[in-house]
């Protein structure tokens, strides 16, 4: 079990490093792509800045507070995207018949799919989110207790795991319908955009859905309520603010189950 995990990690590193080397042979293009990612994902935040040139708060949240929400969601999404961003191409591989190849190698197909075409340029998105997040932390006027400080890495780690699980479920669905990647993206990328704003601006039904169905509020919203000391519009017990690991565990279990079931029903392609 531990051995298997270690050799999977090692294989991931070997494959990812190979793709990094390939991308670095075209240094200029790599630099342009990375900076491009930084700028394009940054536009989302520019939109928020523009909005705040006219208003002082949105849904009861100041600019720094929204920057904190935005940075948290974007950072977690970015990390997950870096780790397995190309898993969404599973459907394409299935259709072309090239997924078979991953099933005859002595490394789990999941690890190979995650590492496939590993794109270091995604650091552009992560850097952009990180800059906003860091600025928010500095700009926020709050009492930094140990618990609040500890909540920040907690948010990033479990938020990333939640996105990793969602990406995996989105990919696994492609074992059933190999052209579902757009739909899956709507949930992951679309969901992360929703989570960049305070839940107070959405109808309560939507917030419930984002808590109990597609549990993205556990990524940054509930941890932020704790750090920023704000009331929960759903009025759930305060323990929910620390429940990210539970959401992450449940989603990971669901993701693993979907992936396994998908592999078992995988039928290759007739030639």
């Amino acid at each position, binding site marked *: 079990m531990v051995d298997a995990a270690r050799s999977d990690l090692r294989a991931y590193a070997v494959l990812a490093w190979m793709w990094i080397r390939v991308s670095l042979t075209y240094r200029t293009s790599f630099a342009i792509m990375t900076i491009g990612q930084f700028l394009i994902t940054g536009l989302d935040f520019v939109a928020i800045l523009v909005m705040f040139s006219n208003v002082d708060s949105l849904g009861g949240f100041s600019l720094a507070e929204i920057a904190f929400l935005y940075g948290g969601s974007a950072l977690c999404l970015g990390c997950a995207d870096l780790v397995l961003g190309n898993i969404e191409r599973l459907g394409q591989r299935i259709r072309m018949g090239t997924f078979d190849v991953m099933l*005859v*190698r*002595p490394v789990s197909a999941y690890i190979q799919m995650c590492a496939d075409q590993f794109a270091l340029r995604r650091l552009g998105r992560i850097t952009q989110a990180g800059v906003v997040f860091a600025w928010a932390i500095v700009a926020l006027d709050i009492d930094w207790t140990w618990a609040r400080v500890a909540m920040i890495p907690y948010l990033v780690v479990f938020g990333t795991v939640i996105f990793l699980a969602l990406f995996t479920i989105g990919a696994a669905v492609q074992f059933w319908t190999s052209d579902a990647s757009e739909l899956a993206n709507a949930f992951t990328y679309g969901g992360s955009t929703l989570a960049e704003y305070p839940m107070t601006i959405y109808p309560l039904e939507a917030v419930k859905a984002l808590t109990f169905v597609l549990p993205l509020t556990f990524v940054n919203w509930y941890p932020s309520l704790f750090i920023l000391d704000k009331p929960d519009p759903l009025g759930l017990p305060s323990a929910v603010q620390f429940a990210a690991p539970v959401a992450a565990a449940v989603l990971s279990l669901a993701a693993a189950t979907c992936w396994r079931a998908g592999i078992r029903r995988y039928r290759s392609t007739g030639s």
Partner: protein
Amino acid sequence: MSVIEVQGVSRSFVVRRKVGWLGRERETVHAVRDLHFGVERGEMVGYIGPNGAGKSTTIKMLTGILVPTSGRLTVAGMVPSTQRTALARRIGVVFGQRTTLWWDLPLRDSFDLLRRIYRIPDARYRANMATFTELLDLAEILDTPVRQLSLGQRMRGDIAAALLHDPEVVYLDEPTIGLDVISKSSLRDFLRETNRERGVTILLTTHDLVDIEQLCSRVMVIDKGSLVFDGSLDGLHALGDARRTLVVDLVEPGEPIRSLGADTVKVEGPRQWLTFAADTSAAPLVADIARRYQVADLSILEPSIEDVIKQMYTRTPREG
């Protein structure tokens, strides 16, 4: 224990077909039905059958890519569908239709990546690379990205890749498809040598009888998902009574050639077609004709797998 054991294995696919405007119909395709066979360590077995017979489906089940619908199978004592990644270390696979190498990488880098993924000991890796570079003539293509290789070059690369980690069993699914005569022949030499020198068990699918003739002492024939023959090549010819064809180009058009044991089936100007039993040698026939006629050219056509199967059915009609 046999290295490959297959007992009553079937695999079907449910496919949806469009009917009319919006209608869809479910249909079950029985790709492989009730297969029984075993392969011993060190054997080189030809697995032959027309397109769509179920060859690739069988290979995919033997690697663990596909889970059988029913039946039991083991490879090297493991159940492929549940122990797939562990089994992968002990088998090698070559798909004629698609590469297992990395499209964007030079061949050398693909091999190096496989070395790390399979954790091949350095000494073994170096020895194998030296052997394959020489026997498969890889030296001048090692630095070429896989996508720029010709089909024959890519196939050589793929075969080396499948053998780098010293697998006990190698499956080759149509390795000669699309190759020219020279590539085919050097590939066959290499496979024969690998089987003999390394004791690797080889299961080779093809729809080219010549591959089998030159490589395999044992042949299994699959047709419409069922194993219809399992035995020696001679046995197949005897059973199928397929006939080989001798094409004779005479210097001038003439009467149909008459020679013992051969039937002249077609005459077109100076060219004549004679058929003779596949299990007899062509040499006496050729000698006899060359002695009595003015011959410009001669060639021999092997029976196609379709012919052999057709003959088998007409000779030994099966029920159902």
